């Protein structure tokens, strides 16, 4: 967060942004469902905060190495844990996992401490991670209060049972939280929105019905399509993007050419050392130099830097190669891989640099061109600002939504790559109380913090109105005007299935002009359209609900997006309703950017609001000129009054015959 908030226009020093105008989110309560909290972190210092909001009905509960009197304060106003569902089902992981864990809100894993500090951590000056990413760190809403609901346990990387999650929702609704931040999810295939195995979908429905915004991560299964999680339309689902910051390490070759990679090395500049690529002599000419199966037997790797290649995007290949090089007496590692942005130090702070295949191949050609190849790895420098552009992260899960393709997911993207925030000292990557992590887990609390600021500024707005404001004002282009890219293989221009509305733009979201609002009846419309039965819907929403005989169309759910998964020869008409939250006397004009080969018209083309007309419905007619099945094509519909730009994404797929498994 030493850069992420500035990159979003929420500089602490400015006195004219959303942060300032919302009093840093003072008085708003953010509930965090996660692995607990490390209360001693400076991010949870209570100095400068007023009394606990009087509406707060939650509790701080003492437990193992967590004393409520000592560890709760005016920042951490609630802390409790939910493990009964986990224990009843799976036995006693606290004794059997081999991992440290506390039967209390104390965070052994570190994930919850990181996410809570990102959403609502207090200002902490002059921090860095291993000397990199230096600056001032804080949460999005530094004066918001934190309510900790520990539902995830330090077993197999963090596990959370749906029975415990539902209990946390039940209590959080009672306690009086304003925002819930859940950096947790469920893998593909997903459960239905009304299936309690999901836990999050059902619990969040009741939270949203009580006016609580629920923000969830989209998942880390990208860049494959149809991997987005937490897809219920009442949830604000968050993708992850990198920020305008890189950690660039120079690789100087013996021929005086300098190439650049990314690294989190802390050691001082090395002198030139030998450089080795373990050539194979068998049938597979590259087998020896595959990072995850690096074979250094019979090679003289001692005192050398080793180059290897991998097609794996995770950390396993790098970790494995580091061990092999270290065992062979090597002094450094260059890993050529798909660029993924997310960086971690190599085990034991071993010097390793990540490069892409192009740079890796240049290094290989150099090695093959000389008898005594040498290299010098320089420690990385933190580069911030214009030369580096934000991209949708490689790992961030992508749409379309596999449960309801007509509901666009993810909704929004936020910084989630190499985010520096508070650490539990038990986090293996922690450095002096701080750590850098990557994931949609890290993007989620960025949006939770922004939602808290918006709640402080507009306390009467519904969760759907806040969600709409965030989506319709998001950035789809970099400040330079160039469209945002999405990491993948190959990289491509980002589309709504990568980033929803775009990269969040908090200052614009504070004054969106129009919102696509929704209430319980709109969600009932969605549930009817999804063919859930009357009884289930009635029980879910608490009122006798009878779906009309002719099922409503899911395309008409009043979302700030239009997604048509299947259009043929007949035009499709969809309806939306917007609510004016800006100046009462306003006139908005529609601008359409149609998807390629798709015809789009809107009626009326002007929306005229005054003191008595606050809501207006309009219809969008969509038809296709394509005579064959196409993939999704993208456009937008924008309403503008010359002050506000209210943009929603359009995604349209032509299907002349039944689809057969493309995405």
């Amino acid at each position: 967060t030493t850069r992420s908030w500035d990159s979003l226009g929420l500089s602490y020093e400015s006195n004219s942004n959303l942060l300032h105008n919302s009093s840093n989110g003072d008085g708003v309560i953010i509930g965090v469902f996660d692995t607990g909290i490390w209360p001693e972190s400076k991010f949870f210092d209570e100095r400068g905060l007023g009394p606990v909001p009087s509406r707060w009905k939650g509790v701080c509960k003492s437990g193992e190495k967590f004393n409520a009197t000592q560890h709760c304060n005016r920042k951490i106003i609630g802390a409790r844990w939910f493990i009964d569902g986990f224990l009843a089902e799976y036995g006693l992981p606290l004794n059997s996992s081999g991992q440290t864990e506390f039967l209390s809100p104390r965070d052994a894993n570190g994930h919850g401490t990181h996410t809570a500090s990102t959403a609502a951590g207090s200002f902490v000056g002059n921090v860095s991670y291993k000397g990199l990413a230096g600056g001032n760190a804080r949460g999005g809403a530094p004066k918001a209060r934190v309510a900790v609901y520990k539902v995830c346990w330090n077993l197999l990387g963090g596990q959370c049972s749906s029975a415990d999650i539902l209990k946390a929702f039940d209590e959080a609704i009672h306690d009086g939280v304003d925002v819930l931040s859940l950096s947790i999810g469920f893998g593909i295939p997903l459960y239905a929105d009304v299936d309690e195995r999901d836990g999050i979908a059902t619990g969040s429905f009741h939270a949203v019905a009580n006016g609580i915004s629920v923000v969830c991560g989209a998942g880390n299964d990208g860049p494959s399509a149809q991997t987005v999680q937490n897809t219920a339309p009442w949830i604000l689902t968050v993708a992850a993007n990198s920020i305008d910051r890189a950690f660039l390490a120079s690789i100087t070759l013996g021929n005086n050419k300098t190439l650049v990679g990314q690294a989190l090395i802390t050691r001082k500049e090395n002198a030139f050392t030998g450089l080795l690529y373990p050539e194979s002599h068998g049938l597979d000419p590259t087998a020896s130099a595959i990072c995850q199966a690096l074979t250094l037997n019979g090679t003289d790797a001692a005192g050398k830097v080793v180059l290897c290649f991998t097609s794996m995007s995770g950390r396993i290949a790098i970790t494995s190669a580091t061990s092999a090089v270290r065992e062979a007496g090597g002094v450094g590692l260059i890993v050529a891989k798909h660029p993924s942005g997310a960086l971690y130090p190599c085990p034991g702070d071993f010097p390793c640099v990540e490069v892409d295949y192009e740079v890796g191949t240049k290094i290989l050609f150099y090695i093959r061109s000389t008898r005594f190849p040498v290299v010098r790895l320089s420690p990385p420098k933190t580069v911030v600002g214009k030369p580096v552009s934000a991209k949708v992260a490689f790992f961030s899960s992508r749409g379309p939504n596999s449960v309801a393709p007509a509901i666009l997911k993810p909704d929004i993207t936020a910084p989630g790559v190499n985010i520096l925030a508070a650490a539990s000292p038990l986090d293996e990557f922690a450095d002096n109380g701080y750590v850098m992590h990557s994931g949609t887990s890290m993007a989620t609390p960025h949006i939770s913090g922004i939602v808290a600021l918006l709640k402080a500024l507009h306390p009467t707005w519904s969760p759907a109105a806040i969600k709409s404001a965030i989506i319709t004002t998001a950035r789809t282009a970099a400040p330079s005007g160039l469209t945002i890219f999405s990491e993948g293989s190959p990289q491509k221009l980002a589309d709504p299935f990568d980033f929803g509305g775009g990269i969040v733009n908090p200052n614009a979201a504070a004054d969106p002009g129009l919102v696509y609002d929704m209430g319980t009846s709109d969600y009932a419309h969605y549930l009817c359209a999804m063919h859930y039965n009357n009884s289930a819907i009635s029980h879910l929403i608490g009122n006798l609900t009878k779906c009309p005989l002719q099922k409503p169309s899911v395309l008409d759910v009043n979302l700030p997006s239009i997604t048509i998964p299947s259009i043929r020869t007949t035009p499709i008409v969809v309806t939306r309703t917007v609510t004016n939250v800006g100046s009462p006397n306003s006139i908005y004009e529609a601008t359409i950017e149609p998807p390629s080969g798709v015809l789009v018209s809107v009626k009326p083309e002007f929306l005229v609001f005054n003191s008595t007309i606050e809501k207006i419905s309009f219809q969008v007619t969509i038809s296709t000129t394509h005579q064959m099945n196409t993939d999704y094509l993208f456009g937008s519909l924008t309403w503008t009054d010359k002050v506000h730009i209210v943009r929603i994404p359009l995604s349209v797929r032509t299907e002349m015959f039944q689809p057969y498994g493309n995405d």
Partner: protein
Amino acid sequence: RRVEGKVHIVYMGEKQHNDPGMITDSHHHLLAKIVGSKQKASELMVYSYKHGFSGFAAKLTESEAKKIAELPGVVRVIPNTLHRLQ
């Protein structure tokens, strides 16, 4: 039966009134109907959901889960599952 029983979530939708104590009593009563006694119901009950919505989590065998699902007021009975950090 503890070996056999798995945690199930008995979901009963929006709560019908605002007295959490009464809601929890109704959950125990419902479970007791199926497992035979209030004491047994207390042993098997894991959570009573009573503030934001109504329902409970309990250790149930498959046949008990099926029987509870047929009782009036019960929307669904679904096994507990695991989520992961992201």
